[in-house]
């Protein structure tokens, strides 16, 4: 990042290629919609370019870029809540009072490969539903720690709360996921072939 600040465009390209996918997955799991996630991702990197002059070497670039991405996700979630559009994660009302399937299950996943189609068709939506069921502050902590590999201390910097708060949220997130996965029939035991056993 310091090289990019000095005018090295290739340094920025290296940063993008290294952090682009983790940041995108964080955004995607935060907002829950691919289209919105793509928009937020582009916006995040544009902001990185525009704010390159404000970057200070005392902070890690990862922390800095996730901070930007997380703030944009929060803004996007607020806008989305104002629009009151039907979320992909919101359950569709089912027949006979049963809770319907999330909208994301009804829509085809254009990014899924044929090999993983069956797997995703069985497990992925359950995991996404379990993750989406978490409160936002727990979800972001879990995503940042579990998928992005950000230490609790840095998560505290990204989210602007104390490390203890982060760990507390993490504990609540783990407990919530465990209960939700149990509700969804995902017991956590993995088959030998790598597939989950859905009860």
């Amino acid at each position: 990042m310091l090289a990019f600040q000095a005018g090295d465009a290739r340094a920025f390209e290296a940063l993008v290629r290294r952090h682009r996918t983790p940041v995108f997955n964080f955004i995607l799991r935060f907002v829950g919609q691919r289209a919105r996630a793509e928009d937020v991702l582009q916006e995040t990197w544009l902001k990185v370019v525009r704010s390159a002059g404000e970057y200070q070497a005392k902070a890690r670039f990862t922390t800095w870029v996730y901070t930007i991405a997380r703030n944009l996700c929060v803004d996007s979630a607020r806008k989305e809540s104002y629009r009151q559009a039907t979320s992909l994660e919101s359950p569709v009302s089912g027949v006979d009072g049963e809770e319907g399937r999330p909208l994301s299950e009804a829509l085809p996943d254009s990014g899924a490969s044929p090999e993983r189609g069956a797997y995703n068709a069985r497990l992925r939506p359950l995991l996404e539903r379990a993750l989406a069921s978490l409160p936002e502050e727990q979800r972001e902590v879990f995503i940042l720690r579990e998928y992005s590999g950000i230490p609790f201390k840095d998560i505290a910097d990204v989210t602007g709360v104390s490390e203890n708060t982060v760990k507390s949220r993490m504990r609540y997130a783990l407990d919530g996921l465990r209960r939700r996965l149990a509700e969804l029939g995902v017991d956590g035991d993995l088959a030998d072939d790598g597939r989950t056993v859905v009860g």
Partner: protein
Amino acid sequence: MKPQNLHAHEDRLLDFAYGELPAPEAQVVESHLQGCARCTQALDDIRGVRVTMSQLSEESAPDAGLESLLAYAQQSARRAAAGPAPTPSRWRRWLLPVVGLASVGTLGILTLNAQSPELTRPNLSAVEMQSSKAVPAPKPVPAPSVAPAQAVAEAPPPPADTIGGASDSRAKEARKSRAEESKRAEGWEMAGSGGGFGTRSRSDELKSKVKPSAIMDGKQSAAKTEPAEKAPREVSNLNEEALAEGSPALSQPAAPESPPQEPLRLGGALAKKESVKDKDDAPSSKGGTWDEGPGAPALEAVTEPMAQGVVASAPAPSGSYAGRGGVAPPTGGASDDFAQASTPRAKSTMKPAKAPSREQLSRPEPAAVRRAESEAEDRSPGLSVAELSLQAQAANRTGDRDQEVRLLRLALDSGASSAERLGLLTRLCDAELALGRRREGLAACNQVLTEAPGSSAAQAARRRLSRESVSVETPAVDSQPAP
């Protein structure tokens, strides 16, 4: 274990599960886990959730927008490499706001000035000033004031002789046209530069006074009074003020008889005859105020007797006249100029009126003239020689030779200097001769010759005497000598 300790233990389990504990602490936790089933269960729960959720596959980031992002970053890097943009110097930073403020301020001031009533108001004040100055200033004769006069002068009422023989329908037409003209004149007057209301009220009062005579004369008098009372109010404004203020003593007794005023008397031919005819009715209009006395010239023509009566009956405010005397010269000039200005137009229509006016001159109303003389004498002692001389000059301009003679004699009696005496005597000689009083005229000229035989005034007196001696040989029709 206390809850705080429990949480601390769980936090340590979290750190241990995610590999964030340092190696020594991790060994401590591992040793603790071997003997603590609850912590082992908690750690298993954490690991179970992590294992399950780790099955959520990672999505690849889209390539859309990557190239544009990199291009944007490249451009930004070039700018960063070029260094920060040079900041404008301090005076340049302040230049734009200061110039903007100055221009806005200038615009505001200009706008305020443009909106101020002095600029947006039509130049009525100037017109008003002109009209107010028209009394002392001779030259600016307001165009509107001439307009109605012209309108009436161009359509004069038919002479009395012809009216007498004319049919009723013609008289009606004439009345109708005059009524229309007067309406137009009123409209113009009200839209004009003020003074119309006062004039109208004055003329209304005069109208009410003229009415008896109008009723007496029937259609003819109606045809005569209407233009007189309505038409040239602005003209009347000018002249009545000029006459009233400038030379009140002159205008009062001699106003009906002054030939130079004739051009101002619109419809004068008819008016003059009518005035002669109505002289006996004059007392009926007594009781008017002094302000009404001078009146409009046209009104004067029609209501001469009335004016005389008014003048004669009105108490003369001598003090005020003495004060007004100083304004006389410009006023006289104004009336003179105005008479000259209106003379060419009026001459064509006024010619028939001249003969009767001459007759009128030769037969002044004795009682009225006497009263006016006494008033003039009462007023004149307060005036200086120069003022009397100027008033006499004004009387000369208005054609009132009688008044001129009286004023010149008063000036001579007021202790004029030798140079002034010569001039006054010369003018007295002229005035007396003009009035046909040959004896008095010759006496004045001889006086000049006696007092300063070698002067230019004496030469002029000699020439005048020689002319008179020639004219004496031819039979002259002199009027009655002055008493």
